């Protein structure tokens, strides 16, 4: 009896949902081994990173705050990736969204009213969408690959941020330090759970995931995105314009990244500083894949990534595990997930020994 690897006719739904859990489990085992070999308490490291944030209720607020921007960005990216539009510059759209929203905050600094914060959020979305419109235009007009342009624009956005906080936007009261003024109360995100640091961004993240899920599963737009992604030729027959899909995918993912940016600026940061970019835009790519490019999946995946960040800090303070270990764990999860994905599309099947197995 031999086993032959073959492509499944239909992707396995069981494997689709099992893969992330398998990836996490294997990461835990491999991680424990790796860190034991390196002279750390490997099992302790895995416990602190993956379990402590869940078992310690004090950490839940941190998970919510850390997961919110990841979820919002990843939901947008998952839509784009479904349409085969590879926006990897969410980090740049996140930064420009924060800049646009902060621009509104600085203009309205001496004003008050409940309209200011919503206006900042809208400006953040517009900023992110506008920044994503550049690669959309270049791709649809000049056929320029969006992977490269979105990445290049991310680097440009970091310099724009530095220019503003070191230059025209530097707070007059900051004693020369590169930072904008602290946002006023009307410009800051309210806390939604009393006694915690959970801010408005968390319910927004949940709402974004639910709304995008509904839209993707129930509307023509969702159908179009999925069709263009899966079968571009069929989509053309169906009358769907590939260019329009590119525009919509980039504008939506850009707007959501921008929204995450201004939420982070108006919430946890409270002002813009050069240290504002924290790689949420790149980490969200992992979240999108871990979440199976599904909005609700992104919600869970965002929490899992948040666990590794928060747990990594716990492990650092309680057992001296270097913070770089978190990056290693995250990369392992993603690698193993990508490997496990193979079995979503393939399976082993028993075959008669006579048949010569073709190399896969």
């Amino acid at each position, binding site marked *: 009896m031999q086993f032959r690897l*073959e*492509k499944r006719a239909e992707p396995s739904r069981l494997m689709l949902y099992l893969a992330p859990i398998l990836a996490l489990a294997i990461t835990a085992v491999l991680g424990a081994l790796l860190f034991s070999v*390196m002279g750390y308490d490997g099992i302790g490291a895995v416990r602190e990173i993956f379990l402590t944030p869940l078992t310690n209720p004090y950490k839940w607020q941190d998970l919510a705050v850390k997961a919110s921007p990841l979820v919002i960005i990843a939901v947008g990216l998952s839509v784009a990736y479904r349409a085969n539009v*590879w926006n*990897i510059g969410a980090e740049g759209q996140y930064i420009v969204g924060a800049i646009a929203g902060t621009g509104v905050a600085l203009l309205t600094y001496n004003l008050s009213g409940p309209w200011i914060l919503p206006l900042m959020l809208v400006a953040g979305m517009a900023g992110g969408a506008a920044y994503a419109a550049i690669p959309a235009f*270049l791709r649809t007009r*000049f*056929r*320029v*690959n969006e*992977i*490269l*342009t979105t*990445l*290049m*624009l991310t*680097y*440009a956005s970091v*310099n*724009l941020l*530095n*220019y503003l906080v*070191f*230059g025209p936007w530097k707070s007059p009261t900051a004693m020369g330090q590169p930072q904008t003024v602290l946002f006023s109360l009307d410009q800051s995100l309210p806390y939604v759970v009393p006694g915690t640091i959970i801010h408005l961004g968390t319910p927004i993240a949940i709402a974004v995931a639910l709304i995008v899920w509904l839209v993707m599963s129930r509307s023509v737009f969702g159908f179009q995105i999925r069709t263009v992604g899966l079968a571009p030729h069929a989509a053309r027959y169906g009358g769907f314009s590939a260019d329009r899909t590119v525009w919509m995918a980039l504008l939506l993912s850009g707007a959501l990244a921008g929204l995450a940016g201004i939420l982070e600026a108006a919430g946890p940061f409270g002002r813009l500083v050069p240290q504002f970019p924290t790689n949420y835009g*790149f980490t969200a*790519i*992992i979240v999108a*894949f871990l979440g199976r490019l599904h909005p609700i999946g992104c919600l869970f995946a965002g929490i899992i990534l948040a666990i590794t960040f928060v747990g990594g800090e716990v492990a650092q303070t309680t057992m001296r595990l*270097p913070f*770089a*270990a*978190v*990056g*290693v764990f*995250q*990369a*392992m999860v*993603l*690698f193993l997930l*990508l*490997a496990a*994905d*193979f079995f979503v*599309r393939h399976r082993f099947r028993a075959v008669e020994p006579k048949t010569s197995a073709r190399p*896969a």
Partner: protein
Amino acid sequence: MNSALIVPFIVTLVAASTPILLAALGELVVEKSGVLNLGVEGMMLIGAMTTAAVMLTTGNPYLAIGSAALAGAFAALLFAVLTLSLSANQVATGLALTILGTGLTALVGRPFTGQPVPTLGPLFPPALANDPIWRVIFGYSPLVYLSLAMVVAVWFFLMRTRSGLILRAIGESDTSAHSIGYPVIGVRYLAVLFGGAMAGIGGACFPLMLTPQWAERLTAGRGWIALALVVFAAWRPYRLLAGAYIFGLLMTLEVYAKTSGGGFRIFPSEFWAALPYLATILVLVLISLSRKGSTSAPACLGKPFSPAG
């Protein structure tokens, strides 16, 4: 700029260009075969850390370069298994490789952090290498001459050999190459391993030549510049050489303008820092315009290939 400055200016420019040239040459071959590996920064870090570790334990620079190449190739193997054998998404796998490289080198490199690493000095004898004029040609580390030789080698391989033709054919149309009987996956494996080795050697330039030490995230984003450079060069080895030196020129010119206390004041320094990236986008558009609606990117770039499908 006065004439006495031109020689050190060029020497700095060439040295600054070399790691991105080496890494970009590797990535060029990878992309020509139709694979996009975004893990260049991670592989460069792995090469840089390996180099520092080997130098600090053995002191042999050539062993260090060889180890960096091997370590880079080994990291690339991980990418290759996932994307080529298991058809994983290349964008996600490449990013995961960079995250892994950044984390792993920070972790494993801790014992070597902040110790002076002996450099690999000029290839030619001091009489030539230290000559105030001739050092513009003879004053470099062997890594610089290696990078130039590799430009010729990669060009020759891609454009003048049968294997190079096959590799390009696979990058342009994997399905037709497969139907003719070319080993699509096998060739891509070799290309990705070569790319990893070159990124590793590019990383070796940092401790051996540019910043004689190891520190976390030492390459400070040069791997991403290498990726931009491949596009900037429209996937051609000689343009890559020119492109690497243009990028090096932009970076060094800005450094010199700053240190001479003048010039460049029309725009803020952040603009100059962003310039290589903006220039890359502009070049992409220009390439597209000159070819009426299609870039010269390999047609299969980033798309998974499975023989059964």
